[in-house]
């Protein structure tokens, strides 16, 4: 009974429900989290259950909202602030990086900021350049912050529950393209350890590292590769900051080949960090260069065909994988 099929959206909602039930200090604050039920319906019904003092519809004041969450966290509440789109994070990077993330340090350990910032990103809805980004790299680069990005239904639940037990600020970035995805939620059994990656598919020929929606493209690519006799180890990075690279290195040292896949614009992305680390730590084990596959270095266009073209697909990952492992060049090779 503790394991059942549900959606990514419902798993997050369940996590909020269970956490709020268990801890009366948890509050939600954000635009449209109450009456509207969340722009993507994640918080539906919570205001009816927990009232307007715990489920707080905020004005459109992102910097203020995150600042309020910081202050509430400093004084005893455990706020879950919601940023409707990660694209708006440029409005709150000061409160996030200079305030939430640095308070414990600047104040010599006296004042922690146990808050969660929930947001969602990614393409898939023709929402254009200001509503489709993948900006996790900015938060990867902030010491003092934690960053998790669930790719599965079970992780959607457990990473959020665990985030709500952390003494430090955690950013949880969901993916708008995953809300309707179905999967099994086992409320008693997380997919893996907090802070660690998870191997989603075992293989021996190449390691594919990804997270969030690109995990699913990577898994689909791994199927294609398997059809060609290439077995991929597919790792879900899940917890990006701080980044525990032990399991990553173990896998790459086994396979000798690695591809890192991100939906974000490639330059300066999480994929670059992972590739750089592998390059340092697995040098003697590598048979081939560590390949990065990411979004094009462009803003996201609104036109659906262009939008799809701007980010990696399972086909592209598989093509690159075949080329990397079997030296079989794709049709578009020069």
């Amino acid at each position, binding site marked *: 009974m503790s394991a059942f099929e549900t959606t990514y959206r419902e798993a997050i909602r369940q996590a909020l429900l269970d956490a709020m039930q268990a801890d009366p200090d948890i509050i939600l604050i954000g635009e449209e989290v109450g009456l509207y039920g969340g722009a993507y319906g994640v918080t539906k019904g919570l205001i009816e259950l927990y009232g307007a003092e715990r489920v707080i519809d905020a004005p*459109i004041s992102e910097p203020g909202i995150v600042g309020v969450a910081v202050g509430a966290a400093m004084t005893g509440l455990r706020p879950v602030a919601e940023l409707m789109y990660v694209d708006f994070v440029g409005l709150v990077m000061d409160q996030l990086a200079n305030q939430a993330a640095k308070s414990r340090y600047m104040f010599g350990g006296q004042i922690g900021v146990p808050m969660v910032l929930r947001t969602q990103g990614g393409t898939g809805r023709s929402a254009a350049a200001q509503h489709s980004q993948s900006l996790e790299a900015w938060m990867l680069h902030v010491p003092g912050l934690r960053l998790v990005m669930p790719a599965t239904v079970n992780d959607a639940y457990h990473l959020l529950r665990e985030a709500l037990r952390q003494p430090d600020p955690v950013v949880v970035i969901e993916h708008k393209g995953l809300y309707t995805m179905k999967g099994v939620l086992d409320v008693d059994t997380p997919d893996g350890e907090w802070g660690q990656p998870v191997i989603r598919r075992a293989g021996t020929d190449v390691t594919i590292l990804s997270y969030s929606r690109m995990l699913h493209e990577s898994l689909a690519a791994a199927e294609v590769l398997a059809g060609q006799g290439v077995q991929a180890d597919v790792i879900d990075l899940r917890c990006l900051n701080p980044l525990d690279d032990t399991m990553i290195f173990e896998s790459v040292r086994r396979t000798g080949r690695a591809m890192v896949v991100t939906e974000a614009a490639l330059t300066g992305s999480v994929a670059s960090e992972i590739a750089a680390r592998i390059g340092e730590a697995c040098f003697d084990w590598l048979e081939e260069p560590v390949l990065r596959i990411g979004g094009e270095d462009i803003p996201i266009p609104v036109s659906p*065909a262009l939008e799809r073209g701007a980010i990696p697909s399972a086909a592209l990952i598989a093509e*690159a994988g075949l080329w990397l492992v079997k030296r079989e060049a794709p049709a*578009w090779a020069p």
Partner: protein
Amino acid sequence: MTQTNTAPLARYRTMRRIRSFEERVGELFLRGASAGSMLHLSIGEEAVVGVTAAMTEGDSFTTHHRGHGVFIGRGADPARMMAEIAGKEAGYCRGKGGSMHIADRALGHLGANAIVGGGIPHIVGAGLTYRNLRSGQVSVAFFGDGAMQQGILYESMNMAALWHLPVLFCCINNQYGMGTRVDRSAGKLAFSERAEAFGLTGARVDGTNVEAVHQVATALVAGARAGQPGYIEIDAYRFYGHARMDKSPYRDPEEEAEGRLRDPVVTARARLAVAGLADEADLARIDAEAATEMDAALEYAVEAVAPPLASMFEDVYAPGTAQPRPQRDRLAAILSEGSRA
């Protein structure tokens, strides 16, 4: 130049064209031809034409995400607009921006913005340009009541007042920011007091009365041109959901029904008839012409072709400067035998 006789009729025509356009946008979506569902209709807010008509050629503006009406008020070509909303190459932005990012340098449209409040400071910057160049132009920001809670608005107002810039802030208060009624988002509702406290000339006008809006806007635009920035709030009602998928379940149906009675197009039509500025036949012809025009815009958009895939790499940087390198080129360089030999 405003002519007492024909101008109100012209304004009515523009309002009707906006209404018809927005209805066609809804249809575009239902036909599966829009780029996404982030379509925000300005039905109920057509009195904004009172402001756009108070601006003159060369004046510039920015809008929020619900800016179709404003742009039509400033002379947009509905076909190119619709094509943009459909994500087509023939659109105002080559299918890259869509409904929320329409712009047109030629008509002074400095851009619709999908960041609430994001476009507001741009008009202050435009005002700075006009002041420095002594060009006599004015720039106007159009935004919603939701943006009244964004800090950047007050930073913008303060700078405009401090530097006496030729700008006007136009809040289209449709009572809602998504599902949040304005009394649930603001500690105090008399927004023009805020503007006044920052040194602007502030006014709030009935959004069913386009002529009243026009009168106030004309004075404020003139004031702005003379270096006294202003604030005008149009008291309106958002007739439909926030975006195309939203059925406004959070609204009291009674309130909604009443709100829709506050129809600026219907009201203007009736007033014109009463004032004897047009008879039913004139008005019906205007309505029909608008419908025909917007039908054509819709068909144009549906028929138009999608942008070529390679165009996605264009316009990131100006032509003639370093351009983004497509991923396949990079992968090929790494993986092709040649370069690894």
